[in-house]
């Protein structure tokens, strides 16, 4: 038997509504909380990112520790053209880039898992009726979902990159990594930002096309993996290297190589890959905007 309590009366609300509430943040927090509710997927998806970060940080630390850097060589003197610290810093930068690129693929997995249901589940349950019966604009809804998914990207790509870079900075003698390889830091931030934004827009756009998370997952992996494979096969068969521009991973590889000044594939064209990435991101956003509009105005 349930006791009737004194609280079961209707109380008028005496507060006031905020003039400019941060509705996208509220929506993003809710999306993150829901995403992290299931512990096993979260554990499985975050573990590789954590391992990558740890291995990367330890490797970078060891590269400094076991190298023969003469005392007082924090500033690169370039004596007789031989500079051990310069070589080490270069190796460290290369390793940072490798680990960041590796983390990016784990981030893709995590963002796909957490993002696939973000809009598909809303569509399946009709939760858009609850959201859009509030003073929430479609822009606010879209921003909320994007911020929520980008948070998972930040956890799986941004934080591992930050850990590895921090190790490189703090382990280097006399802040030499910061003074001589600072461009690696902002380039990593730029690469991670573009990766997270592009993947978020694609995942959410595909999630907004279907009503089930499993379908959205299939669609995302199908689009990225199948398209990448098909583009590669077609490029080889037809000997048209431009067909590889349909592959998201290929374009990111080219972009990363160009950004970090690594040796480019001779067939690759960084400008074309950048344009292709922009098309992926903007196409995803356009599709997302169109579908969210249909969710706000339901018929």
């Amino acid at each position: 038997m349930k006791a009737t309590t004194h609280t079961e009366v209707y109380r008028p609300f005496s507060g006031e509504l905020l003039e400019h509430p941060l509705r996208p943040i509220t929506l993003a927090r809710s999306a993150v909380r829901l995403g992290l509710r299931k512990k096993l997927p979260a554990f499985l998806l975050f573990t590789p990112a954590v391992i990558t970060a740890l291995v990367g940080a330890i490797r970078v630390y060891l590269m400094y520790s076991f190298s023969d850097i003469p005392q007082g060589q924090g500033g690169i003197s370039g004596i007789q053209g031989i500079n051990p610290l310069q070589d080490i810093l270069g190796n460290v930068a290369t390793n940072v880039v490798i680990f960041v690129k590796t983390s990016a693929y784990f981030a893709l997995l995590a963002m796909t898992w957490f993002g696939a249901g973000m809009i598909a589940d809303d569509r399946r349950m009709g939760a858009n009726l609850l959201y859009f019966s509030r003073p929430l604009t479609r822009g606010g809804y879209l921003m909320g979902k994007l911020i929520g998914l980008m948070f998972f990207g930040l956890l799986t790509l941004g934080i591992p990159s930050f850990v590895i870079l921090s190790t490189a900075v703090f382990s280097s003698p006399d802040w030499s990594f910061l003074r001589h390889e600072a461009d690696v830091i902002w380039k990593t931030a730029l690469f991670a930002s573009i990766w997270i934004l592009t993947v978020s827009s694609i995942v959410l756009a595909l999630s907004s096309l279907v009503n089930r998370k499993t379908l959205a997952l299939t669609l995302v992996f199908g689009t990225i993996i199948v398209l990448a494979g098909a583009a590669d096969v077609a490029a080889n068969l037809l000997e048209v290297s431009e067909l590889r521009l349909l592959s998201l991973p290929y374009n990111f590889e080219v972009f990363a190589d160009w950004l970090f000044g690594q040796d480019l594939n001779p067939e690759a064209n960084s400008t074309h890959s950048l344009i292709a990435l922009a098309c992926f991101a903007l196409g995803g956003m356009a599709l997302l905007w169109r579908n969210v509009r249909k969710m706000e105005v339901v018929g």
Partner: protein
Amino acid sequence: MSESSYDPPILIETSGLGKAYGKVQALNDLSIKVPPGAVGLLGPNGAGKTTLLKLLLGLLIPTAGKATIVGQDPRTRRGRLTIREHVGYMPEGDCLLPETTGVELVSMLGRLTGMKAEDAMTRTHEVLDYCQLEEARYRPVTEFSTGMKQRLKLAQALVHDPQILLLDEPTNGLDPKGRRQMLELVADLAQNHGKNILLCTHLLPDVERTCEHVIVLQNGGVKLADSVAALTQADGDRYRLSVPRGADAFCEALPNAGVILESREQDRCLVRLPDEGQSADVLFQIAHQSGACLESLEPAKSSLEDVFLSAIQAEGEEVSP
């Protein structure tokens, strides 16, 4: 929010409102004025009730005409956002996100309306208590019964203390106990807390129990709109009688006095006097003359069901009594 400066005599008004889904005309030239208080929006399935609610919230775009609610036009962006601040909407479908708890869902929707985090959380607990979900508030909504889900949807509609509630089939799928609980809440909100409620349903007793006014929709148009009291008031010339002895003789004698026997079920009769305003004494005289025993006599009232059925009978629609 609770002390709004807006207090118009007409809360909702539509003029020539139309909505078509392809070739299907859901609403056709609908012009209604919804007064403050509890108003029942009745109609058979497919009459356009849910479409009207969505048009009022700006969730649908009309193909013709216009509507205003709380003085705002839902076709404009500013109007939509203002309306959604002042209106609480309880959708018909099961639209609750499965992995959320009651507290999370209601407080999140409160914050989306513009409440501060602390206010939203306090208010969430208050409305969940009010909707008798206090013990279930931390359970995932997947574990909720249908009745609990319906009450949770009411709680989320109430969280920002709106002046108008649009309730779409709130008793849908509920057992008698759950239905009674829901109707008690709706009636309490309307009668004791001054909420203006547009109750959309096809269940006549729900409206009869909670609403002061009723609007009957059919095939996208208005069939009837009046106060429940006016629609169900006693007819001056019709009476229900109970004649436990001599009913046959009594009924045979009625035509001689010009009284029309409308219906008879064993010893219960429904009769109409020849002239409106005529005294019922004639019935006692007939009973005396025919040797019948008249046990009870009361003015006959039309039930809302009678009114509703007669309003839509011409179209031959099926309704749920």
